[in-house]
């Protein structure tokens, strides 16, 4: 068979369309779901997170807000406490500094502080990532910061099907879920995109459980643990290295909280070599946690020192060449893999 057939019940969608489809289906299914944020109405979300939803659900459920992130995220929390299922968009994760208290001291802690008597079934969506010269205040990933603070789940889809499936799970979860979408995986017409940002997406209900990593490319020589846009860069490099006979296993974490440590450990046990690729800052973040997970289980698994490819503790520079130097792009990933072999 030389024809690639789209399996029954799937179509090719961009990540943003897949995300919107999940929101749409859940809104149709559950009256208590609504979406709120800046420019999510007529604009359809700066990164197309709500395209078409205003027309379908009206301004009562697709709600433009003032620039008052503390105010409207807190509003979402209060509504969730009363049994609604708000999806609240923080336009860029970089803006978390103006509303982090609501996120980490309230959204994430109320369930615990109430001894389980109150639930906060809320999704906080936010755009992350750089690569298009948006500067130090609009290019950060910051998922390490969200994941460090307990009480909220954190998911980070890298492709259309997962974007849909994780959104469905996030909306149905009785816990607060932070849903971080990288601008570079959304398949936006106005931004450079990886070819995998349009891909097959199951129709109808599609659920990807939160907390399960995925081996997106099996391999036997080296394990690359990564997430979000970097999954695609890693796959690109894996394809290239395959030509040199290097068989790279690539793991897409998909969820940071809960973290699927088993899948990571199983892979490293097999390959004995670990590279972590992370677009967040290097120190005190995701890359350290993954390496530590191995070293606190059995450092003997590592046949070579682990390698971390991340942003080297520097704000994201504006100029293109500088930015691409600090981002974990293909060249750095390849060097890291070669270094552990």
């Amino acid at each position, binding site marked *: 068979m030389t024809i690639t057939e789209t399996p029954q019940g799937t179509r090719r969608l961009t990540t943003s369309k897949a995300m919107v489809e999940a929101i749409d289906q859940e809104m149709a299914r559950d009256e208590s779901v609504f979406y709120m944020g800046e420019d999510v109405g007529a604009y359809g979300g700066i990164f197309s997170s709500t395209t078409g939803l205003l027309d379908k659900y009206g301004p009562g459920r697709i709600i433009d*807000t*003032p620039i*008052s*992130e*503390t*105010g*409207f*995220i*807190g*509003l*979402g*929390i*209060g*509504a*969730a*406490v*009363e*049994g*609604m299922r*708000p999806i609240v968009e923080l336009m860029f994760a970089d803006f978390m500094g103006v509303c982090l*208290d*609501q996120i980490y*001291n*309230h959204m994430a*802690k*109320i*369930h*615990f*502080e*109430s*001894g*389980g*008597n*109150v*639930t906060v079934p809320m999704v906080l969506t936010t755009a992350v990532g750089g690569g298009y010269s948006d500067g130090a205040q609009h290019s950060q990933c910051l998922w390490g910061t969200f994941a460090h603070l*307990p*009480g909220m*789940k954190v998911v980070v889809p890298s492709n259309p099907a997962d974007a849909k499936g994780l959104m469905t799970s996030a909306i149905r979860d*009785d*816990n607060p879920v932070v849903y971080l979408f990288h601008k570079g995986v959304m398949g936006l017409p106005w931004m450079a995109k990886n070819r995998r940002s349009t891909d097959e997406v199951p129709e109808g209900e599609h659920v990807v459980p939160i907390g399960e990593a995925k081996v997106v490319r099996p391999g036997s020589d080296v394990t690359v643990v990564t997430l979000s846009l970097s999954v695609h860069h890693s796959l690109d490099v894996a394809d290239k290295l395959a030509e040199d006979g290097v068989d790279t296993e690539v793991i897409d974490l998909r969820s940071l909280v809960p973290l699927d440590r088993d899948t990571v450990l199983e892979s490293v046990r097999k390959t004995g070599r670990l590279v972590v690729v992370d677009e967040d800052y290097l120190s005190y973040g995701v890359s350290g946690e993954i390496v530590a997970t191995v070293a606190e289980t059995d450092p003997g698994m590592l046949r070579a020192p682990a390698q971390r490819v991340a942003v080297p503790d520097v704000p994201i520079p504006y100029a293109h060449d500088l930015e691409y130097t600090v981002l974990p792009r293909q060249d750095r990933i390849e060097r890291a893999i070669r270094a552990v072999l």
Partner: protein
Amino acid sequence: MTTQAPSSSSSGAASPGQSMEPQARLDLYRTMVLCRTYEEAILREYHADKGPGFDIGKGLIPGEMHLSAGQEPVAAGVCAHLTADDAITAAHRPHHLAIAHGVDLRAMTAEIFGRVDGLGKGRGGHMHLFDPATHFSCSGIVAEGFPAALGQAFAFRRRKTDRVAVAVAGEGAANAGAFHEALNLAALWALPVVFVVEDNDWGISVPRDLSTAVDSNAVRATAYGIPGERVEDNDVDAVHEAARPMVARARAGEGPSLLEVHTLRLWGHFEGDAQGYRPDREKVHEDDPIPIYEKRLRDAGVLDDELVQQAAADATTKVEDAIEFAKASAVPDPSTATDYVFA
């Protein structure tokens, strides 16, 4: 959006209580007495075993303790207009509001003692009381409790009810960004919220005039096009009267209002606060609103010795029962320390 110039009531005017039913005033009095009796009991229990010296982490009630003695008129006056279907969010000084709103005294007390029968099974503590039954909550981060009230109000309206949410914080909190964002949003979306500022003249040791650029937070209502009023004299009748149209406006779907009450912090900011910074600390008890109200009600023929004693006895019974309940409740099992992170 109704805009109304902020006004301010003062005790010089005709007493607001005159038009009230005696029974309603008796209820206000009883609520205040219950709050005070409770705070006195907590004070006693809190300090009972902090020694030798004073170790904040020790004793049956450890941690910071912010008591509300002197601020009862706010709680009693506002909550009289609410039912258990209405919501309240309070701040770090929440007891009087919880009590006036009808939070179960036993469960609340057990929480303050950190016990398994507490509102939060001992996880929350006195700054983190969550009662789904009365939609009561509070937060230890100043002003950050306000936005949650908006969400409760949003949900109430979405369900086509006439329920309201009341958000309470101190005058210090009114200078935090969350205050501004919450008021603008509530006004913009005409949410059924009543914002209440308890101006007790102090934010810990910082006097009001070193924190707030204007004399009355009621004028800040203008910045959102909503009604604002300041009650000047910590008078529960006046609070009751000022809150009435605000709660009614919210119930009618006409939007939020802002009420400031000039109240009184009788004790320290928290227990252990020597208040060296406070010039009036020796004579502050002269302004205690409960004896003042008691005298007024006696003069008005609403109260007599018997009713006063009865109110005190009732309050004591309830409070001591709650304290006994709390002490009898088990301390949480350490093996459950990581429970309830996720549902």
